[in-house]
């Protein structure tokens, strides 16, 4: 999956960074002049070398401190990987239950896969096979491709009867790609009862935006950062020479800082678990108790009756069983994610130690770390020692939301985050990612950096600093990013 990029110099003299495959065709058809022979390139997805692999539990969990915690981690991990069918035992090999009636994929690990269970979008998009799994009869939307990123779709605005967006009615809710209609275990929930959202129309009206999975390695460490630590960092950036001034998204109920998701829209891993189980897989649970209709259905008559197949909540606390099996799936998903170790940086790959060290110093000098900062955890953890204390863990994010400009805006508002505000993406684990930015628009690290510049972005000055560097200096930054 290594993706290499070149710089094409267009006739009007502006640099454009493109994927090499695209570059080749553009080159032939438009007869553009020189390809920059000495431009920085993304060396591509970093391979795993020894202990650099992500997906392990924290050390203290690995040494079973406190006793039995490792068995909770392992159980959570296997539940995270379970493929769901509609009802228990209805399909061989599909251990989970409660799928649908609407869904985006069939297991947490299908989407959170690269480079290990808990990660981000894999090289082969599981949503391609999900469309027709177990007899389902879904049409694959144009934006879902076999080698493209896993995508969650949201409609920007509600539409009139003819599919025209009503720009005074923001929608922003997730539109599940698929329904269970046609599956061998779907019962009366047939294609006559339920249909997919009209993605063709949404694409034609440019009324659909995408989100790719955020990896959850080290998520427990993010969860455990004190609010004061975050506020202190924010205060320390007052007067910074990069024009950066972010804010925090807050949980609407208790007003505390929320921190998970592309817009920092969610407070905790457990809430995210419950919501993801409900939204991505259609499984009702103790946190999100009903089967989830589409936003439009919710405003009309809800889900069709024949499609409400199981008693709810489908996932719940299990009684009369072992300690480890007692918690619900949602609780155990959260426990697994919380106990995952942070991704480890490679000291040497790609480009060698000198280039990576230099890249880090450059990254900091030009102001990338006015947003992408490392913060120390300061609160002791009651769960396991590995989550507390003050270890150095480089999440490379202030967990603030920042204006990223018209180029990245997705026009979805979540909490206090407006259409162009996003949580500073934590950069740990970046080296082994295949797709970048909230919608997975690129696999090229260089493009991911370029996209920070557009009208209204807080990162514009930093990007000008980046453009003041020499090609080898830029290459060092890219190597540093790929070492993470």
């Amino acid at each position, binding site marked *: 999956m290594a993706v290499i990029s070149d710089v094409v110099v267009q006739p009007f003299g502006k640099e454009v960074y493109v994927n090499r495959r695209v570059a080749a065709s553009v080159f032939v058809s438009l007869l553009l002049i020189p390809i920059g022979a000495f431009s920085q390139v993304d060396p591509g997805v970093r391979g795993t070398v020894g202990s650099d692999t992500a997906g392990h539990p924290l050390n203290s969990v690995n040494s079973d401190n406190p006793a039995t915690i490792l068995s909770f981690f392992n159980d959570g991990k296997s539940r995270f990987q379970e493929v769901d069918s509609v009802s228990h035992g209805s399909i061989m090999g599909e251990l989970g239950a409660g799928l649908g009636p609407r869904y985006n994929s069939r297991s947490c690990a299908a989407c959170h896969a690269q480079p290990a269970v808990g990660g981000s979008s894999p090289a082969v998009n599981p949503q391609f096979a999900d469309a027709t799994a177990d007899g389902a009869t879904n049409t694959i939307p144009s934006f879902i491709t076999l080698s493209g990123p896993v995508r969650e779709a949201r409609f920007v605005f509600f539409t009139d009867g003819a599919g025209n967006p009503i720009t005074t009615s923001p929608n922003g809710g997730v539109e599940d790609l698929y329904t269970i209609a046609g599956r061998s275990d779907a019962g009366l929930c047939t294609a006559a009862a339920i249909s997919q959202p009209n993605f063709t129309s949404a694409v034609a009206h440019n009324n659909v935006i995408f989100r790719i999975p955020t990896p959850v390695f080290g998520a427990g460490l993010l969860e455990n950062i004190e609010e004061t630590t975050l506020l202190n960092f924010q205060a320390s950036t007052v007067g910074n020479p990069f024009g950066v001034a972010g804010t925090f998204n807050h949980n609407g109920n208790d007003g505390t800082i929320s921190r998970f998701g592309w817009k920092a829209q969610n407070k905790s891993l457990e809430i995210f678990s419950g919501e993801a189980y409900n939204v991505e897989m259609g499984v009702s649970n103790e946190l999100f108790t009903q089967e989830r209709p589409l936003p439009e259905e919710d405003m009309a008559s809800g889900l069709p009756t024949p499609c409400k197949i199981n008693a709810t909540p489908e996932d719940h606390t299990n009684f009369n069983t072992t300690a480890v099996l007692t918690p619900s799936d949602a609780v155990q998903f959260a426990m697994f994610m919380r106990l995952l170790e942070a991704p480890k940086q490679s000291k040497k790959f790609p480009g060698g130690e000198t280039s990576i060290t230099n890249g880090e110093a450059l990254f900091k*000098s030009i102001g990338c770390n006015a947003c992408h900062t490392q913060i120390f955890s300061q609160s002791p953890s009651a769960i396991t020692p590995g989550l507390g204390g003050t270890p150095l863990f480089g999440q490379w994010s202030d967990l603030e939301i920042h204006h990223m400009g018209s180029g990245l805006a997705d026009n979805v508002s979540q909490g206090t985050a407006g259409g162009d505000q996003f949580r500073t993406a934590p950069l740990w684990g970046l080296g082994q990612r295949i797709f970048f930015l909230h919608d997975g628009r690129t696999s090229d690290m260089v493009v991911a950096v370029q996209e920070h510049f557009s009208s209204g972005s807080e990162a514009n000055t930093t990007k000008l600093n980046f453009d003041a560097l020499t090609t080898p200096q830029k290459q060092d930054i890219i190597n540093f990013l790929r070492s993470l």
Partner: protein
Amino acid sequence: MPLLIRRSISLVFIVWFCLAISASQGSNPHRAGGVIPKGEILVKGAVPAASDSTTPLPEDGKVVDGRYRNDYFGLVYPIPDKWSEQAAGPPPSDSGSYVLEQLALVDREQRVKAHVLITAQDLFFSALPVANATELIAALRAGLAPLYEIEREPDEVKIAGRTFARFRYKSAVAGLHWRILSTDVRCHAVTFTFTGTDTEALDDAERGLRDISLNPDAPSCVAGYASGENVLERIDPHFSARRYNTIPVRVIIDREGKVKHIHLLSAFLDQSDTIIAALRQWHFKPYLRDGRAAEVETGLVFGTPRTILRLPGK
């Protein structure tokens, strides 16, 4: 030859068609039946708002005839030769930080040689307790990471008849130099940050500051005036939704003690409407300057108050 003509005709047609589409979109702000335009921020979060459209606002500066002009600060800054305006910055933050303008000198290879960022920090709303430009620069100095080398410790310099706090440092690894000059205007620290690899270009641009003017036609600004015994009548805004955002508001109070102008730096639209309606009913003790009633500009915070934290390195 005929083929070529046919091609250019179709090209002309395509161009005309695109123009026609963009024109029709421009004339129809609601775009009913339309396609959502790319690259536009349509769904807004907290944004600036004001009670009238005539009083100058800090965020309203623009480049006209080779000068950056900002009526709120009474600022006119002649753009150095060959420097060009860059993409606009973000809206004002809920901590009173403004990106006013960004200009850069870019060479033929698209390499940035030098750039200047013009910012303003509203001193009523900063997340750090800084009272003026000198303290802002001191905070920057105190928090400066060790990877930078100081080229000149903070000091003060007179430029165009004003006092500027000045600070210079560099990054050896990046080959970049920072020259920062900040001055107090209307209880804001207005800061020019020159950055670049090309020190001659930086020298030139910095010299250009001698030709600026910074003469706001403004009332006195007084921190905390709209509080305590100065408030004679007060109607609290009642918000329809709980949001936990901080809403910094600047007001100008007239000689009779009535609110003459309201500027919300960062608020949701419903919040702006509610706050403007409430503040219009407030009544203050007239502000006295040399024993005579005078207009005054001050700040208030609605929504969630900001926690003011320690200075870095202290």
